[in-house]
């Protein structure tokens, strides 16, 4: 039995590839299919949501439960939370008393354990664990912006080959370094998608239609880290997708952009609200940029190392393993 820290390479050896970039492309595809959920996992998630949806309909017959976030766009890592929102006809389910009433109801029905009601936050939510599947659930109330964002991201995924693959790798990379949590200044899921979308839709070889991104995932991943780790002008540039495709905007031309204490900050215009900077919470940009630059160095050094190695030395090796540090369960 072969044991390895990089389970996605088992039975997927690409060490004989002539170009390291092609090897990396194939390894990215292998990793993405490795972390993609199985039919059983998808069913378990859908059943979990179904049970909670039924309970909500029973409790409030004018309300419905919708999913958004990574679950709704198929961009989730194994074990990630499910984000839901309750929308009602009267639009009155975001009161403190409603939050507590629903939490108690779910508890009594045996549908929720470890319940936390966070009523005072800017976005009030209930957090709990589904006792059958052990999946963590966040429920928010009466806010449609998450649903609109999910719809837009699904359109981007349709129009942008490679967006799903590179986003999942960057998500896993940031997750392994605890830089993907907005509450601690990291990059949120929507911001990550915007960075990848913008990178792909402005890449010289892609806008000129010279390459198929799916055939070039390896070099594109390295160049993603190159752009945001070394070259991007965070002090002066904002990203916007107002015209349907992403463009840069000098920060000084963004009226209503609330400058943070430091000009070294990420600014991404919310496609649904031109006054909102969706990455304003990512205050730890210094570490994020440093991590991206580190990923570029790790990946390019690995390419140089493997380029001079013999085919015998390359067998069973991983190009990506050290960068993404996947420590999930065996799948």
């Amino acid at each position, binding site marked *: 039995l072969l044991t390895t820290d990089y389970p996605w390479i088992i039975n997927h050896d690409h060490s004989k590839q002539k170009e390291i970039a092609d090897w990396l492309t194939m390894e990215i595809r292998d990793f993405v299919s490795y972390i993609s959920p199985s039919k059983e996992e998808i069913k378990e998630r859908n059943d979990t949501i179904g049970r909670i949806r039924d309970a909500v309909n029973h409790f409030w017959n004018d309300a419905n439960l919708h999913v958004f976030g990574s679950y709704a766009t198929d961009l989730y890592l194994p074990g990630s939370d499910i984000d839901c929102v309750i929308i009602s006809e009267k639009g009155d389910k975001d009161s403190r008393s409603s939050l507590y009433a629903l939490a108690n109801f779910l508890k009594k029905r045996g549908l929720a354990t470890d319940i936390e009601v966070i009523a005072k936050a800017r976005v009030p939510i209930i957090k709990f664990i589904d006792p059958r599947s052990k999946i963590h659930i966040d429920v928010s109330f009466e806010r449609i912006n998450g649903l609109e964002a999910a719809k837009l991201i699904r359109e981007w995924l349709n129009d942008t080959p490679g967006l799903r693959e590179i986003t999942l790798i960057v998500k896993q990379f940031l997750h392994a370094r605890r830089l993907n949590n907005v509450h601690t200044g990291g990059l949120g899921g929507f911001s990550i998608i915007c960075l990848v979308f913008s990178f792909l839709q402005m890449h010289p070889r892609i806008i000129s239609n010279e390459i198929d991104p799916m055939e070039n995932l390896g070099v594109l991943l390295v160049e993603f880290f190159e*752009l945001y*780790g070394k070259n991007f002008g*965070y002090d002066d*540039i904002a990203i916007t997708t107002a015209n349907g495709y992403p463009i*840069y905007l000098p*920060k000084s031309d963004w009226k209503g952009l609330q400058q943070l204490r430091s000009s070294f900050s990420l600014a991404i215009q919310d496609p649904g609200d031109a006054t909102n900077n969706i990455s304003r919470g990512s205050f730890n940009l210094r570490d994020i940029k440093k991590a991206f630059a580190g990923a570029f160095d790790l990946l390019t050094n690995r390419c140089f190392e493997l380029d001079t190695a013999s085919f015998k030395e390359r067998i069973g090796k991983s190009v990506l393993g050290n960068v993404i540090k996947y420590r999930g369960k065996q799948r």
Partner: protein
Amino acid sequence: QCPHKWKKVYCTLCNSKRHARDRCPNIWRVYLLRDDSSQQQDDNNEKKQKLPIERIYCYNCGVNGHFGDDCPERRSSRVPNEDGSAFSGENLKEDMK
């Protein structure tokens, strides 16, 4: 004799004087291009390879019309860009440069 004798480094792969052959970006910056013959058979204009100027933006100053590597403004990032990046007019097919 000068103690800081200039060590001649240059790349036998791309002739750059900024790196040696074993650290040449051309080792990893390799693109698998679309098949040219299938391009020509396709009369559909959408599939033709051309450079849409309206999609070119500068990562350094944010202005439309040039790539970040070719920006005339002072560099915004403090990390140096010695060997050039993907976002350069150089990183295009000959006839599009």
